């Protein structure tokens, strides 16, 4: 007896010493059905069918923007301006589909901060143009570059296209403007290239093989980033802040693509659709779906109140999309209504998805939100 009673202790200590605080080692699955949801398969679907193709498409959009710019700088006419503006908008739409993937290479590059900080700081931008002496890689210039800066140069400088073409061809600052515009586009291309390379290279495997369930595992980290994006950049940035829901007074100047005016809804809806597609594991530019947060929820059998949580979340996304689609442009909603009741109630529908994601989904997946490094009991 005396010799044997500590054997279980040794066994347990063996388990325990093998399990680091971070966990994350893969374990052999049984030959038959997977016993728990295969997080690795979901990560692979995210990486291979959604994240990488979205980035590649975005990179192509930026290349097309560069081409359109080159064409315009060679022949500065109205048609080429329209094409350039369209290429800008296409890239902006492409951006909405990758903005949420701020993890790994995009996170270290600070892609979102460098690509789409709005409103643009027009004073800074103009002084940069004027001096011709600027370093776009500096954090201090983030307010004067990316899509919002191009928005200003293409849509905010002059009242109509004829004057704008004249400004770019014969204006006193024509050369400086053109150089700045070209630098802005180059900056975006330079920032995006390494991110795509990284996903095409090593990072994909780093991401997919980190399929554990600790706070540093890919699923846990990405779900946190995903919700953060939804709350902060989609909900607050694109709607909440212009509506003034955090300040008490509307701020139409903070609308995304402020100078283009009529595309803010489209940009928002593209981003929301991208979020929903990601949630459902829908492959980029295809109707095929793969393992996703939605299928994970189905697998965990979180049937509540008669409706599956994945369905409830999709319903809420659909409701939000419907409400936003019915709106006039954000700028006219905000500037022509006091208070902007319709847009506020659309915002409420966008908002309602937050607790579903942040409370219900996260709790069902047993992911801790904003990883808190402290003991529990």
């Amino acid at each position, binding site marked *: *007896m005396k010799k044997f009673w500590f054997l279980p202790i040794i066994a347990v200590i063996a*388990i325990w010493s093998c*399990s680091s605080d971070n966990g994350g080692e893969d374990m052999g699955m049984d030959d038959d059905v997977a016993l728990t949801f295969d997080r690795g398969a979901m990560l692979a679907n995210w990486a291979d069918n959604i994240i990488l193709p979205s980035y590649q498409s975005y990179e192509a959009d930026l290349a097309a923007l560069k081409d359109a710019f080159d064409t315009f700088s060679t022949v500065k006419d109205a048609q080429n301006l329209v094409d350039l503006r369209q290429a800008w908008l296409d890239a902006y739409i492409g951006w909405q589909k990758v903005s949420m993937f701020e993890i790994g290479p995009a996170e270290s590059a600070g892609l979102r901060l460098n690509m789409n900080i709005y409103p643009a700081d027009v004073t800074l931008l103009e002084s940069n143009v004027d001096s011709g002496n600027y370093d776009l890689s500096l954090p201090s210039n983030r307010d004067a570059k990316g899509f919002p800066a191009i928005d200003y140069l293409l849509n905010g400088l002059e009242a109509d296209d004829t004057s704008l073409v004249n400004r770019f061809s014969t204006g006193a600052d024509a050369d400086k403007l053109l150089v700045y515009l070209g630098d802005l586009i180059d900056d975006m291309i330079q920032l995006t290239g390494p991110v795509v390379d990284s996903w095409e290279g090593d990072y994909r495997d780093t991401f997919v093989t980190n399929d554990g369930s600790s706070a540093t595992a890919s699923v846990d980290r990405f779900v946190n980033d995903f919700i953060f994006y939804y709350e902060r950049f989609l909900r607050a940035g694109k709607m909440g802040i212009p509506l003034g829901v*955090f300040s*008490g007074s509307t701020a139409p100047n903070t609308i995304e693509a402020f100078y283009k005016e009529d595309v803010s809804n489209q940009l928002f809806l593209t981003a929301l659709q991208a979020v929903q597609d990601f949630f459902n594991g829908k492959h980029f530019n295809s109707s095929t779906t793969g393992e996703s947060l939605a299928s994970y929820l189905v697998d965990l059998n979180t049937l509540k109140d008669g409706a599956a949580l994945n369905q*409830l979340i999709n319903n809420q996304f659909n409701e939000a999309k419907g409400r936003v689609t019915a709106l006039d442009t954000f700028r006219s909603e905000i500037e022509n209504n006091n208070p902007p009741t319709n847009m506020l109630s659309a915002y409420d529908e966008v908002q309602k998805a937050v607790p579903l994601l942040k*409370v219900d989904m996260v*709790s069902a997946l047993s992911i801790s939100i904003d990883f808190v490094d402290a003991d529990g*009991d």
Partner: protein
Amino acid sequence: MSSLVSYFNKYEEAAPLAVFRIFFGIMMLWSLIRFWSYGWIEKLYLTPKFNFSYYGLEWIKPLGDWTYLLFIICGISALLVTIGYKYRIAILVFFLSFTYIELMDKTTYLNHYYFVSILSFLLLFLPANATFSVDAKYNKDIRFQYIPKWNIGVLKLLLCIVYFYAGLAKLNSDWLLDAMPLKIWLPSKFSVPLIGNLLGKEWMQYAFSWGGAAYDLCIPFLLLYKPTRKLAFVFVVLFHVLTRVLFPIGMFPYIMIVSAIIFFDASLHKRILVVISKLFRFNKTVFDNQSYYKPKPITVNKIKYTIIILFFTVQLAFPWRYLLYPGELFWTEEGYRFSWRVMLMEKSGYAQFKIVDNNSGRWFYVDNTDFLTPFQEKQMSFQPDFILEYAHFLSKHFKENGIENNAVYVYCQVALNGRLSKTYIDPEIDLTKQKESFEHKNWILPFKDEIKGI
């Protein structure tokens, strides 16, 4: 009554109490160093702009950079307790400083901190320095090989209460019939070696739920009963190491494992002391003086017994205070803390506060990250007393920033044990008009479900 009196007159070797003192001191010192080394003093106490206080204890706040000194004092007193130098003062300082630390912000509330606090309070009344201590080495007047048995008995009783009440708390329909919250927690632990891929199985989740409840309810008796003691201790180690592997519960498993040694006979403790004395190369024979603890004057003893009896009466009664509140305990959390309800709920929430300027009608939502750390926000979003305290803080903050006459509303969604999130607080209620008290908060919306059981 006469048997109780005779129990109080029984004597026992002082060795178990000395071993307990030494291990307790080491565990506490280790806990404090660990806490500091993880940067938690700064993160949990110094970074927050606002601290959640216990009702009535609002004056207990972090002390800025002096908080580090508080931890140093606490650590030194733990060290002194370990070696038994100026024991009474050391344990008093430890109790006060540790309790102060735990009361600075209720965001960090843990049952095991509460356990440490009340345990150190109890130790204040026990002659834990009677043997194998610096005090006893140099002062033969307090050097006793034998002490009244009850001094060890009260420690066992406290441990039994902790386990048994933790077990009672598990006797509810969520835990036993739905295997909640383990059904949520266990599948995500698939990367644990050996048992990882079993944790997704439903039978395993039920086995853990029922096993956990049975363990908590039975282990006190298995430890008290000599024939089952060794086996029970194996269970203690097994159980706590398993919880350590599965959940982020810090030092608690180690503290409980080490504490459970108290249940063994004095002979084991004497052997432990021999090992320690050999390890540090000092002679322990001076402590084997065959002397019996000299009772204190009768009035001193009376006060001591009264305090200890009161202490245990409170310990036994306090966890039941939730019965005085209407509504579901897990939902309202009125009477939830300080009751050994450990790892019982998967509860999370989302709270959005709306500030209304009563004069102009202008309103806006608060960005909680402006005021709270992520940990505070997480804890605040599903506990009514946190929500109210934060609402009052917001009202004051905006009053000072130009909105003299304001109202604060909250839109709060809470999910409990796998149920779909529901609105938690009446969104029509102006929280600035509500006062904190021990009375039921009638602005918590009903649970609309039932959890049967204790």
